[in-house]
């Protein structure tokens, strides 16, 4: 993952922009807790992270994150309706089996939902597909035979899912490296960031 000069991931400031100060945040697949710690610093948030990988879990613990080892595929039954201001699923949706279920659960638990994912419609991925191989890129570094990703999608696919389930999109940003992509985002964008609300 590309780091900018402050040593955090370049999508963090965008996510932080969508998070109101002092929010209560739940980060699904929080990894080593970097995003939650960034949001603590920048937005004074409180919150919890969910992480099932033991090594990442321990890293999160060591940085003081309230980290819970729960399997997301089993839903968010530990959490009450509307109990969080923001629920974040950052670059994790593509590896989930129950994609629709988790989005519904996030919108049940959170008043606001932020989802980010690698755009499978990105031109570099398309070229590799045309060349007859499974795409690999900075955002998708895995080979087809060892990838955790089972539900890759394009920006258009995700828009269709939002329409189908009547998710309300209040913000969308598409990035390639650190730059925002406005023209043909589904072709020229590598990473998509969505800001949704429950109604």
């Amino acid at each position, binding site marked *: 993952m590309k780091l900018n000069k402050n040593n955090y991931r370049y999508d963090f400031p965008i996510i932080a922009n969508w998070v109101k100060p002092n929010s*209560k945040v739940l980060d699904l697949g929080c990894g080593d807790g970097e995003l939650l710690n960034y949001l603590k610093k920048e937005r004074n948030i*409180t919150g*919890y992270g969910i992480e099932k990988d*033991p090594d990442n*879990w*321990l890293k999160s*613990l*060591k940085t*003081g*994150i*309230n*980290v*819970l*080892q*729960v399997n997301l595929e089993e839903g968010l*039954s*530990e*959490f*009450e309706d509307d*109990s969080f201001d923001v629920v974040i699923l950052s670059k994790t949706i593509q590896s989930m089996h129950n994609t629709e279920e988790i989005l519904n659960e996030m919108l049940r638990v959170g008043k606001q939902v932020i989802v980010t994912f690698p755009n499978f419609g990105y031109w570099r991925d398309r070229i590799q597909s045309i060349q007859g191989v499974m795409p690999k890129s900075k955002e998708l570094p895995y080979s087809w035979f060892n990838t955790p990703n089972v539900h890759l999608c394009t920006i258009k696919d995700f828009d269709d899912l939002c329409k189908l389930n009547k998710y309300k999109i209040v913000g969308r940003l598409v990035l390639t490296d650190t730059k925002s992509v406005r023209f043909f985002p589904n072709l020229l964008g590598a990473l998509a960031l969505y800001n949704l609300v429950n109604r």
Partner: protein
Amino acid sequence: MTLKKNIGIVKPEIFKSLNPLRLQSGKILKEYNLIYETYGTLNKKKDNAVLVCHALTGNHHLAGRYSSKDKCPGWWDNLIGPNKPLDTNKFFVIGINNLGGSDGSSGPKSINKQTKKLWGADFPIVTVEDWVNSHEALITSLNISKLAGVVGGSLGGMQVIQWAIRFPEKIKHAVVIAAAPNLTAQNIAFNEVARQSIITDPDFNTGNYYETNTPPRRGLRIARMLGHITYLSDDVMGSKFGRKLKNKNYQYDFKTEFEIESYLNYQGDKFAKEFDANTYIRMTKALDYYDPSNGSKRKLSKVFKKIKSKFLVISFTSDWRFAPNRSKEIVKALLDNNIDVKYAEITASSGHDAFLMEEPRYHTILKSYFNSML
């Protein structure tokens, strides 16, 4: 250079309370003793004290040995000591034998000062709530106004929960391992079989067996064998013993045929020689009675409302007596109250017993958490 890791020789102390303790049952203990041990040094600010609560058959002897000839160290010696996860170079660690115990605290085997005789069967039933109230009196006598942490597994974990509920101002961190907010029917059932095996042993004599020196060893032995089966997982029993035989071939009699039988018999015999039956049935009762929310999951959130401590909750995948889902009930009630909580589910094959083992991930987590408490 290797770091010193063992506590060395330790000595217990006695706390004598002359203040009456009103028990949950309504009875009153006019005065009582608690035997306890401490390890490490209480610092000037008195903010480095950690209380470790024991489970069903544990006691105050957490770590170290009583003499250089002592074969076995305290029951949690793999966790507690200099440079161990609960580091006695940093923390002042306290272990207390619970009321009703038989290792020096007031219990069936101690003298009732009113009658000048052994308590025996007359020693009242004590509960988790009573234990925590008596612990608090001891902690206060040590001039500790706030514990850095309270730690416990299984029944010990229930005491940690009770500490956080009952004395929210006096505990900074709660470490709850392989525990549950109450027992399931299945768990109570196992306890009842264990109790019945003791109570129906003719030697039990309604709990008055000290004078005749005829402890109900047969009953205790069966209770322990049953316990052992439930503390292990099917998998670990399979891998440890499988269908291995004592002899080369079947003997076609009722003597010990399989390794697992031999193991259980050995454990049963050993326990029956060492442990007091009156204590055992009382400890299982305390397990059965503990239920801070009267069986309601919703109400547990309300009971947790005043909690101020931070929590670490740990469960083990193969533990079916205190399964991970029971730990998640605790976590959920904490989340409902926005309480700081970390939750780990450790992959372990050894069942409920895993909480006493030196599993690397488990001990690394505890070490990291304990270090964060200072």
